[in-house]
């Protein structure tokens, strides 16, 4: 967890510069700048309403779905500003996938849930598609559990299986970044552990940004951590530094449990 990844100097996959965001009159993000390294897990922590989910949803432009949002600043994905008009949202979201707080499999079969992405992006069909479904389910350790239930409704799975299925959907479209918005908050500790193990494995191939309420989780899974407070990114750095030698008094107060 704390070992050097050798990627400290690699170009960031995602970067935000001077990001300000308003919901109507309320400013939810204040001058946020951060960069997210490839094949690294970055955790965003902070109390509710601090803007961590908002920041996450900026990275694949899911905030576009909300009325009355105003954004200033730059959001770079592989060096390209995704806020430009010529940036294709469908291509962006295919590469920068999102896992939600509440697992949200579609009301379709297990197979169709995984096949949905490859189908809409015309990436595979027929036996290729079967292979891709199997590969994606294997990547999240669901294949052995579900290989005989591929035609069953995904709504009949357990919460934890549903969440892993949602991660498998992103694997199926060959996403590069996984944005996880409190992916374990509806799961029990055992299920949380399984998902965390999975994240650890996935980080070999994916860049992961996880928003979490749970400081222990951030300490367990991430290499880098950003602490947010009232819309500001107070401190951003290596997880070990944030948790052992926080530079900012507010970070220290939060991680030692003085508030939050």
């Amino acid at each position: 967890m704390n070992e050097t990844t050798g990627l400290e100097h690699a170009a960031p996959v995602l970067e935000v510069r001077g990001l300000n965001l308003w919901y109507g009159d309320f400013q939810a993000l204040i001058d946020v700048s951060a960069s997210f390294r490839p094949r690294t897990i970055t955790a965003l922590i902070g109390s509710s309403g601090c803007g961590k989910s908002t920041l996450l949803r900026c990275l694949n432009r899911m905030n576009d779905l909300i009325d009355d949002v105003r954004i200033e600043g730059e959001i770079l994905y592989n060096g390209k500003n995704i806020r430009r008009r010529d940036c294709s949202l469908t291509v962006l979201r295919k590469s920068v996938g999102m896992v939600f707080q509440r697992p949200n499999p579609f009301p379709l079969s297990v197979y169709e849930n995984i096949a949905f992405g490859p189908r809409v992006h015309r990436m595979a069909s027929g036996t290729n598609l079967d292979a891709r479904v199997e590969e994606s389910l294997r990547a999240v350790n669901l294949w052995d559990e579900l290989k005989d239930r591929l035609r069953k409704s995904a709504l009949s799975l357990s919460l934890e299986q549903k969440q892993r299925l949602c991660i498998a959907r992103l694997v199926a479209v060959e996403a590069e970044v996984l944005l996880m918005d409190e992916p374990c908050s509806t799961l029990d500790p055992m299920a949380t552990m399984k998902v965390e193990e999975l994240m650890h494995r996935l980080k070999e191939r994916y860049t992961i940004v996880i928003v979490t309420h749970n400081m222990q989780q951030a300490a367990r899974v991430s290499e880098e951590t950003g602490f947010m407070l009232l819309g500001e990114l107070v401190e951003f750095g290596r997880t070990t530094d944030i948790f052992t030698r926080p530079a900012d008094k507010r970070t220290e107060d939060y991680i030692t449990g003085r508030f939050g």
Partner: protein
Amino acid sequence: MKLPSRRLREFLIEKLIFLSGIASVVFVVLIFIFLLREGVSVLKTTSLGSFLGGHFWYPISTPAKLGILPLILGSLMVTAGAIAIAVPLGIAAAFYIAEVAPKRLRTVLKSCVEVLAAIPSVVLGFLGITVLVPFLKSVFNLPTGLTAFSGSIMLAFMALPTIITISEDAINAVPREYKEGALALGATHWQTLFRVVIHGALPGIIAAAMLGIGRVFGETMAVMMVTGNAAVIPQSLFEPVRTLTATIAAEMGEAAKGSAHYFALFAVGIVLFVISFAINLTADILLNRGKKK
């Protein structure tokens, strides 16, 4: 002194509410018993088979021929035509209102749909006779514009508000998470709607279609005005037909009480009741199944 009178009042109010509550049940039962008692008497003059399957409806010839097959087929044909028009149109409109239209237009459209529902059927029938019937006659070069197809178009208009409103509710009831999940995978708005949202809304949409069918099947006035009312077995949509409902409406006033004709009309009522009941029941079952999920 005060307490007993208050208790009496409570008692009376409770009983009154109870009566109002079960009134609808009592009425349905009474109506059905009445229909049944009058309608079953038709079997004194004709067998069940020749009543339901008879090809000729000559109720005042001697002996009277009381076969309602042309009427059943007339009703089914007009209904089928109306549904073929109203269901696709209604579902598409519901999707547009629920998912595509900008907010302001959505409000306008929704009130328009409500206004459409408020137009009395006789007024629609009036428009049908003066506008639609001559139009169809000249466009398709028909001997008469009073056809099953004219009825289908009129009825489609009447079923549309039901289908749109209920489908739209069903689409709105689809959890936001499905939509977000699909969009977050890079699906387009269109793909999200037609590959994911529609699956969540399907039971409600089917129920909407069924209720639309029920509305169409039981409609009388507009149909009577535009379908030509010829009680013959229809060969195509572009011929005059007579529906079950129109038959009762047109002939009940003239049938002598207690005659075979009179009883036959009640029996037609039973057939209508049974079919409508079956349609509504199916819709209910589908709606409930959708809610449970």
